[in-house]
């Protein structure tokens, strides 16, 4: 017989006080960043907290739903992603058309390296079961695989940016953007058709959207729109990680002036500025702290034991981390910067990214079994 233990009133009171302290700590961090960097940057940190809390708190992500679709034909997670993208597109595409100077979308060209990069990213994100945002959130919630992969993700992003022009010289199309009312209609039709395909391919009985997914999609969309309006640019992840690694390289005395990307005046300017004034860095930091906060709030997640893996698994995690960072730079973004923000701001490369990365995910799932991250 199972005995249910009712928490004591004293325990409940301590938990309430502890949670209030958590919220106050987050607000103090936002106030500190606002005071020492600027209020806009404080708001961006707050948005990052929001992303982390929603992604971890509502178990909303990108890699997991793709895996669920491929392995179990469960489309709910992908349908929720498409819903969030559609909601953002309804606001972002008209605003970008009305304010082309103040706001910029996630526009990037389609090219050979971009397609290859998206494919590799899709495979690598299934190996560690974490995409750009997922790796940050999972690291914050105590996932050891993501924790090990994260610094290599940053190094890969730095290296990918270092070599980006060699790769783009392989061939790129001009940037193609779906703009204005026509662009919005085309984007929404694309999203509806894509959702319809996944719905049809989905297993009967698992096609419905759970309430938590709908709430998460709406909240993520609101946060992404805030990101665009406050920062003037869409939600991204990878640039910030590469910047952290580049700053580390410079501090350790490496000469990165031979890289066209890192030697450009805009990059030098950011290397000489605080990460607390870089939008993607702030939302990245916020996502990790937000995920830590949710795990602490739940009061049970963090007591779970960490699984042990053989050496070859850790080697695979390191390689996958490097591949995530490097490939996402060639692909002009990860699942957030290219797929989510690309499509929702009308960039055609977001659609191509999605197709290539989804194909890569099939390979990544097989590799995950092979390297010991999954029971065979």
């Amino acid at each position, binding site marked *: 017989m199972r005995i249910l233990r009712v928490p004591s009133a004293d325990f409940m009171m301590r938990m309430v006080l502890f949670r209030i302290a958590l919220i106050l700590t987050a607000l103090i961090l936002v106030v500190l960043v606002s*005071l*020492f*960097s*600027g*209020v*806009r*940057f404080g*708001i961006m940190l707050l948005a990052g907290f929001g992303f982390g809390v929603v992604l971890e708190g509502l178990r909303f992500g990108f890699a997991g739903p793709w895996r669920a679709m491929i392995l179990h034909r469960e489309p709910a997670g992908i349908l929720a992603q498409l819903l969030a993208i559609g909601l953002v597109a309804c606001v972002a595409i008209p605003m970008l058309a009305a304010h082309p*100077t*103040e*706001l910029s979308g*996630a*526009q*990037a*060209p389609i090219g050979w390296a971009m397609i290859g990069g998206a494919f590799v990213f899709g495979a690598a994100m299934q190996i560690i079961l974490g995409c750009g945002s997922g790796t940050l959130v999972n690291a*914050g919630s*105590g996932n*050891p695989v993501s*924790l090990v992969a994260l*610094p290599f993700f940053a190094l890969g*992003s730095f290296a990918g940016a270092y070599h980006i022009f060699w790769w783009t010289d392989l061939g790129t199309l001009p*940037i193609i953007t779906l703009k204005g009312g026509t662009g919005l209609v085309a984007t929404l039709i694309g999203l509806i058709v894509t959702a319809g395909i996944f719905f049809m391919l989905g297993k009967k009985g698992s096609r419905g959207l759970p309430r938590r997914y709908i709430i998460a999609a709406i909240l993520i969309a609101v946060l992404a729109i805030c990101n*665009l*309006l406050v*920062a*003037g*640019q*869409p939600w*991204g*992840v*990878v*640039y910030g990680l590469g*910047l952290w690694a580049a700053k580390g390289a410079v*501090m350790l005395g490496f000469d990165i002036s031979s890289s*066209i990307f890192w030697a*450009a*005046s805009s990059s030098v300017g*950011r290397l000489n*500025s*605080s*990460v*607390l*004034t*870089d*939008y*993607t860095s702030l939302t990245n*930091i916020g996502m*990790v702290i937000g995920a*830590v906060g949710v*795990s602490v709030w739940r009061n049970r*997640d*963090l*007591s779970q034991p960490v699984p042990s893996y053989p050496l070859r698994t850790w080697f695979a995690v390191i390689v996958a981390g490097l591949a995530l960072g490097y490939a*996402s*730079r060639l692909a002009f*973004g*990860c699942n957030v*910067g290219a797929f989510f923000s690309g499509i929702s701001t009308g*960039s055609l*490369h977001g659609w191509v990214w999605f197709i290539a990365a989804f194909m890569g995910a099939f390979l990544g799932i097989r590799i995950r079994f092979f390297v010991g991250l999954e029971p065979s």
Partner: protein
Amino acid sequence: MTRGLTSTIALAGLFILVGIDIWVTPPNPYQSPPLVAFGSGFSASGGFCGNLLNEISTTVPGQ
């Protein structure tokens, strides 16, 4: 080893990174941009993984 330890390592790593960065490149609140980009009249200027080609082409001659 529990997830609490790995989560603490992630958080500590993050605070060390930010701490070192503040020490090397301290932020300057007097150079902060307007509260919100939308309606500010200023061009978007942040780094982003998707727009680097445009950005470089305006800053590096010959690219």
